[in-house]
């Protein structure tokens, strides 16, 4: 079932640049008598590398989860009833790439698949869960999916002969196509809502551009016929990406038409009168990491709230030795993770972990405060925070740390910690996609089942 009607909400932007507010239009009221369709389920992922300090992350017991949560997740306390934690989800076993724990922690995270060993010097892995969802629901929104990162994806470190891009990419459009992430909040804002807000324009779209691209695609097909088979594959990637741009222009055109109709008094879209106005996004001037990460989180919230996309990934940090001066020390994350339980290093890793979870909490707390129909935005989301290692010291992946926030439109039973779940990363991703309404005809990566405990 597709739920189109409710979804064409407009984001009206005023003023570009540093601060951008989205004023609520009082005049937009749901057409009388129509009950809004159920809001769509959105799926978001946020990543931190190198694992956690386990006794500060895992709740003591199911019973204590709500009453005395572990220190790492303290900032989620206001909405713990809307969160779910599970212990017992294992990562993909990384033999035969034993020497590449950090090259694989991120790239296996949403694929639950190991790179192909024989072609390891190229990218050859699997489509990732977020992109599977984007393929399914991306046609309904201006952007099929949103990919964000805090650092450029340019880390050069060769582990076990694997292509270096495995280090810093989690989203794969196809087995051979990593999806690059955006790191500049201004660019993200422009991409989502256009530079010139105001006057009802969502973003600029030139219908002629779309027709021009049509002709370019025709020409590219001619070129394709003259190429060898390897080159043809590369050109297919090009064609695929240009078609996505075409679709995007078409979607923008449609929104523009709707906006024009609304202006003329003809209502074509509906949103609930009680919906919260779109949040305000401020791009910080300084270089504080918390502020930077929060604006990326805000952009995710806004993109979900305005139904600009329904799928997001945010690589909050990549496994490349980043440091957190804001926490009062400059040591790099990885240098502290092989701590052998030395107190000072454990303290620093715990602080870094808490810092990352705090930013996630900032995002989901905000979502929990936004009304959407008769529920909240968070109620209709599945937001997963996690890491690709359990213990960064020993590189273990038996119990991957992750937190799920949001009820997925009623498909997830939250407010629980399940200490003894059995399953793997693929099972988990498969289940989350099912909760998001994606018919998963094939299991993701190493999945063999769904984690039934997640469901209501």
């Amino acid at each position, binding site marked *: 079932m597709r739920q189109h009607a409710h979804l064409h909400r407009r984001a009206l932007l005023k003023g570009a640049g540093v601060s951008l507010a989205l004023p609520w239009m009082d005049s937009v009221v749901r057409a009388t008598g129509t009950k809004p369709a159920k809001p769509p389920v959105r799926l978001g992922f946020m990543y931190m590398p190198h694992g956690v300090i386990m006794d500060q992350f895992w709740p003591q017991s199911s019973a204590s989860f709500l009453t005395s949560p572990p220190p790492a997740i303290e900032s989620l306390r206001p909405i713990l009833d809307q969160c779910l934690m599970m212990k017992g989800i294992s990562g993909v076993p990384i*033999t035969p*790439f*034993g*020497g*590449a*724990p950090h090259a694989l922690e991120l790239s296996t995270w949403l694929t639950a698949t190991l790179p192909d*060993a*024989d*072609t390891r*010097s*190229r*990218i050859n892995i699997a489509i990732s869960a977020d992109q599977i969802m984007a393929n399914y629901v991306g046609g309904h929104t201006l952007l099929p999916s949103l990919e964000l990162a805090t650092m*450029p*994806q*340019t880390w*050069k470190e*060769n*582990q*076990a002969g694997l*292509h270096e*891009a495995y280090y810093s990419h989690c989203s794969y459009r196809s087995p051979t196509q990593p*999806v*690059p*992430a*955006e*790191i*500049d909040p201004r660019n993200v804002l422009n991409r989502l809502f256009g530079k010139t807000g105001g006057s009802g324009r969502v973003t600029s779209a030139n219908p*002629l*551009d779309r*027709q*021009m691209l049509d*002709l*370019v695609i*025709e*020409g*590219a097909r001619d*070129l394709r016929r*003259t*190429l060898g*088979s*390897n*080159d043809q594959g*590369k050109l297919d990637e*090009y064609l695929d990406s*240009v078609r*996505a*741009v075409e679709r*995007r222009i078409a979607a923008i055109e449609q929104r523009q038409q709707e906006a024009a109709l609304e202006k003329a008094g003809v209502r074509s879209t509906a949103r609930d009168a009680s919906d919260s106005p779109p949040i305000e996004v401020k791009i910080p001037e300084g270089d504080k990491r918390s502020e930077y990460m929060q604006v990326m989180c805000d952009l995710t919230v806004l993109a979900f709230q305005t139904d600009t996309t329904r799928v997001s990934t945010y690589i909050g940090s990549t496994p490349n030795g980043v*440091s957190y*001066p804001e926490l009062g020390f*400059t*040591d*790099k994350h990885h*240098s502290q993770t*092989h*701590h*052998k339980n030395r107190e000072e290093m454990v303290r620093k890793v715990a602080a870094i972990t808490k810092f990352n979870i705090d930013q996630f909490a900032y995002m989901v707390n905000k979502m929990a405060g936004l009304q959407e129909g008769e529920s909240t935005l968070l109620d209709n989301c599945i937001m997963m925070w996690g890491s690709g290692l359990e213990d960064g*010291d*020993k*590189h273990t992946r038996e119990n991957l740390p992750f937190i799920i926030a949001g009820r997925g439109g009623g498909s997830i039973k939250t407010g629980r910690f399940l200490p003894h779940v059995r399953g793997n990363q693929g099972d988990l991703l498969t289940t989350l996609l099912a909760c998001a309404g994606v018919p998963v005809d094939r299991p993701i990566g190493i999945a063999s089942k769904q984690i039934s405990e997640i469901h209501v």
Partner: protein
Amino acid sequence: MKTRLRNGRWFKHLPHLRCGSQGRIAFRPRVLHLSAAVLLVSVPLSPCRAETDEPAPDEATLREEAKRTFRRKVEPFVNKYCIDCHGPRPEAGINLRSALKTPGTASSSLHWKKAVANVKVNDMPPDYADAIPSDEERQEFIDAIGSLKYLAPRDPGPFVIRRLNKVEYGNTLHDLYGVSPSMADSLPEEVTGEGYLNSISPLQSELFLEIANKVVNQVVSPEGNPPTDTQKRFFGTTTPATDDQRDTARGVARSLARNAFRRPPRESELDVLLGVFDLGRENQLSYTDSLALMWKAILVSPQFLFITPAAEVQSDDTIVRLDDHQLASRLSYLLWSAPPDTELSELADRGELHEPEILRAQVARMLDHPRSRALFDGFGAQWLGIGNLEDQVFDPELYPQMDIRLRKAMLDEARLFFASIVRDNESVFRFVDSDYTFLNERLAKLYGIKVSWTGAKMRRVQLDDPNRGGILGMAATLASTSFPNRTSPVRRGVWVLEQILGERVPPPPPDVPELEEQDQVDMEGLTLRQRTELHQSEPTCANCHRVLDPIGFGLENFDAVGRWRDNNKAGTAIDSAGQLPNGETFSNPAELKHLLAKKKTEIARNLSERLMSYALGRQLDGYDEVVIDQLMVKLEQDQYRVRTMITEVVTSYLFTHRQIKE
């Protein structure tokens, strides 16, 4: 475990392999190279012209020899000791059954490399196996695997049309249309050279369209305004009569496409562009705006965004030479990160560029051009590992001077030094050992060098202090290998081994703190001897660290931002004396530098391999190794001069050929 010093290798048994770690197993295991060198000595190799299409006659001999070795040494060893576990249901992902069937392929070579690594450290076969090979058998197996590169089919490796990277794309817009390269800033950052993704996503395509719009809007004046110079150059100055407009537009398309596609456009391609022009006219765009729409189509076409062949290959061959236009682009983007200029384009049009003498002359000409700084920005900075210096975190209380200007000066020093070595065609070992550098006032002050001038301008400075001069005594590299709050002898040791000598240092196993993290406070007051003993008290670490640490500690007189110091923070005199694994000793950074600079072959081979990988945009493997062997022969004959190295890479079989079918 018995230590084998044969071949003079520094990492005889790698304890980390016991933990299932393979380290980097791409192309650089020196083990293989050295055994190959042994083979090369026993079979005389007359230098061949790398740029010819015919394999050197010696390759056939070597291939036959390798086949015999394979049958005599490898097959029996594998069948006796390995195949039970690494056969059809391969343990640990090592499938030697398939490797035996196709020993020379790239995928088999991965299995061989892993196998040899484990056999070498007596990790395989396991203790409980029925049969354990003798040390002699092991060594024969290891040597035999080293000759397998001669079984690799002679091919230039995987080849796929390449998209311009972000830098190249920005420079191309600048060179062709005079707009600022910063037009490309909104594109995602990319790894260039080896590790380049060469993929294209909807995000990038969207940005290519957005940027094309910007370029066109900037260059084409609005109706009624005087045209810009670039506009006049491509569109002409007058609007032709209605009947002539399509013909004129075709001419405009031809010249725009010739530049943008970096080759003559095919007539069918012009037809497509004319279709876009017509689209504009049908939608009531003016003549000029229709041309602008056509131009925009060019800017989002695959022929602009990718380096595409000039014509369809009508050949049953699986391997062909790059056509001259492809070669011109490949060369130009390698040395300049920019599109071919008029001279290169004309040589390509005449079909002469591939002629070895002409190609060599072009390399020389291009290296003389200031644009060749792109080779440092792209390749040099990556090789030295200093690309991230501007964003690296330094503790502001300890190193308040590390502002952006000082960091830029450090990078400028490295860049100018690199450029001077290329310009003067010095031997590659000069990168390590030289008696001059480039400084401005602040950098000179940081180095404690008295100069008679002031200001931010970088100047060449003759050095009296033998500790400076060369990349080991350079702030950019010393700072890049440091932690935010202190030096890292381990990282410096790894850097010297990997970046200068091309060794492969396996990553530490999990569950082991970085050694210097363990006892940082305690170690401050210890002598080198005490520290070394401390490292050796951890057996898992000792094997590598007894090699790394002395080199790293040998640079301890340089602090985390490259300043000279006699005492460490605790006030203890720094003892930078040490020993290389081959027994050579040094007592300060200057002596270490001289010892390392003597390793010309290692330095040259490492740099050649890295440049080749960068030029091809992929890891090296299989037959590549044979090509590098040949290149090394030539390089040695010419005192390892850096321009010879660059020229040999450009004229090599790998750079000038492509595989059109698998």
